[in-house]
């Protein structure tokens, strides 16, 4: 019970707070500031719920969740969300296939193999990838990855100008630092005793890494991957520019797909008239996107909390 804990300081200073009239004004202003973030959440939820409700007055839940055709602009009009969800799933899947092995290998190297000085140089460079605006990655997906890499490698007749794989490759670059950096933190936090015990029993560095450090850091690694998924699912520019705008159910990454975010941007750009069904579809899809990213973020925080509990 020291004074340095602000919680107790509150009690200690309760009387003094009112001895200066300005003090309660300041407290009021600060409380208002803190209220802004709560209001932001309420507004996001409020806007999404209200406009989606109007959407679902015109389009039934059954159509939204059971139809497989997403065709909001041409006859026959159909609002089956699965084509957009499938597009998102396809780009997310390939992004993870690329980024998870590379990201984890980089995390293992930085945490278990690298000299501290090497680590000090390499980690910030890797993390700099997270600071690059995603529109830059989108430009590369469309130009370098599609034009110079995929089409020459697999044939222009095989690879669409707009294809899911080019988006996935740049999404993988985008989430590489998230996966590598958070996993590295988790591995570096594994207590030294565990490693020493394994070495004492004659394990090699690779065995210690795979059989001791990796399982011990698993919660943190899962959290890193969940956060990365949330970022990929919510990313707009890369998929909107590189993956195209053809909603379809396909598992072929060389074809173009439309994701949930891609559709939302299309409506935003198309200047759809307020009150029309396709304008309100923006909010219904936005609601789906909000719930999916929220679920992954909440799950990630749960796993982060778990690994802290185990070893701290």
């Amino acid at each position, binding site marked *: 019970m*020291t004074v340095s804990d602000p919680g107790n300081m509150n009690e200690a200073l309760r009387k003094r707070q009112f001895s200066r009239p300005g003090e309660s004004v300041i407290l009021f202003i600060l409380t208002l500031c803190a209220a802004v973030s709560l209001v932001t959440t309420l507004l996001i939820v409020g806007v999404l719920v209200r406009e989606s409700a109007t959407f679902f007055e015109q389009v039934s839940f059954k159509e939204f969740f059971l139809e497989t055709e997403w065709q909001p602009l041409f006859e026959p009009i159909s609002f089956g969300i699965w084509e957009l969800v499938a597009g998102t799933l396809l780009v997310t899947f390939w992004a993870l296939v690329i980024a998870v092995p590379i990201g984890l290998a980089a995390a293992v190297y930085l945490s278990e193999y690298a000299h501290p000085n090497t680590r000090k140089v390499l980690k910030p460079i890797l993390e700099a990838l997270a600071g690059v605006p995603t529109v830059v990655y989108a430009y590369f997906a469309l130009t370098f990855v599609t034009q110079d890499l995929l089409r020459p490698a697999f044939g222009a007749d095989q690879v669409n100008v707009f294809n899911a794989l080019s988006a996935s490759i740049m999404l993988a670059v985008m989430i590489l630092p998230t996966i590598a950096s958070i996993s590295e933190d988790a591995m570096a936090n594994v207590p030294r005793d565990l490693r020493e015990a394994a070495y004492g029993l004659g394990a090699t560095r690779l065995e210690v890494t795979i059989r001791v450090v990796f399982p011990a850091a698993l919660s943190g690694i899962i959290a890193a991957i969940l956060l990365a998924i949330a970022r990929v699912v919510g990313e707009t520019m890369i998929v909107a520019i590189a993956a195209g705008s053809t909603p379809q159910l396909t598992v072929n990454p060389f074809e173009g797909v439309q994701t949930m975010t891609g559709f939302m941007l299309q409506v935003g750009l198309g200047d759809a008239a307020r009150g029309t069904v396709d304008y309100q579809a923006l909010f219904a899809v936005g609601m789906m996107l909000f719930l999916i990213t929220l679920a992954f973020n909440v799950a990630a925080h749960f796993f982060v909390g778990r690994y802290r509990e185990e070893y701290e």
Partner: protein
Amino acid sequence: MASESVRLRAGGAVVRRQFASRASRYLFLGATLLGVSILGFLAYDTVDTGASRLSLDFLTNYPSRFAEKAGLRPAIFGTLWLMLITIVSSIPIAIGTAIWIEEFAPRNRLLTIVKINLANLAGVPSIIYGILGLTIFVRFAGMDRSLLAGGFTLALMIIPMTVIASQEAIRQVPPSLRDGAVALGATRWQAVRHNVLPNAIPGIMTGTILSISRAVGETAALLMIGGFTFIRFDPGPNLTDFADPAGFWAGLEESFTVVPIQIYAWSIDSRREFQANAAAAIIVMMAGVMALNLLAAVIRERFRRN
């Protein structure tokens, strides 16, 4: 002969295990270098494509149908004004929130809710902030597709991460400083104002600058609120408007474009020669983003030495 008899030699399985362990180092190193070299390669490719288009004219020209004549002028004006609005409207609120959480908030469930809420808001996709801005600022508040609507939208987007960074900075201040002030009879706010904040400012600035650098590159949210327009004037108040509040305000209500949106527009242009423009614009934007990151790093290092 004698020396050979005492040399220890691992055999069979042990040799294989040690070899696998040594080899794995190069595998993991390779993965790390792959990630690091992507950054270098992207930088090289951009400069290779875009450097020839970089010139003073490129910065001062308006967009054009001809790639060689097209320039970034309105986009640069738009980005600068938008950042000004974003900074002015978000930073005080973010720092105020951080101070409230760390120094004033009652330790109860409300605080837990505020903290969880901030963590979740930081993870909300930027396009959702875009439709929030579209509904609240553009439509409901009647700001139309203006600089103000864009700046406020970006402000809501960066407040959560700025708060989290500022909290971190405030927590780094040794409690003894606060305790000392309080022991000498300072009120809570006096202790915060004169002892905590001055020591937390470098950390707060670092976090704030990094948030701003995120806002500089933000594209999706601004496209949602209608920043995708062909603009042939300088968005924002002109020099003559500074003396006249009404004119200044009218300038903030002008429509706009920003550098990342111009990059988007040139990237999706089917004419190949516009790709060089996109690359050149990326060089300009990354120069700005990197300057901000460098500034943040310099402030952080200065602070650490003291």
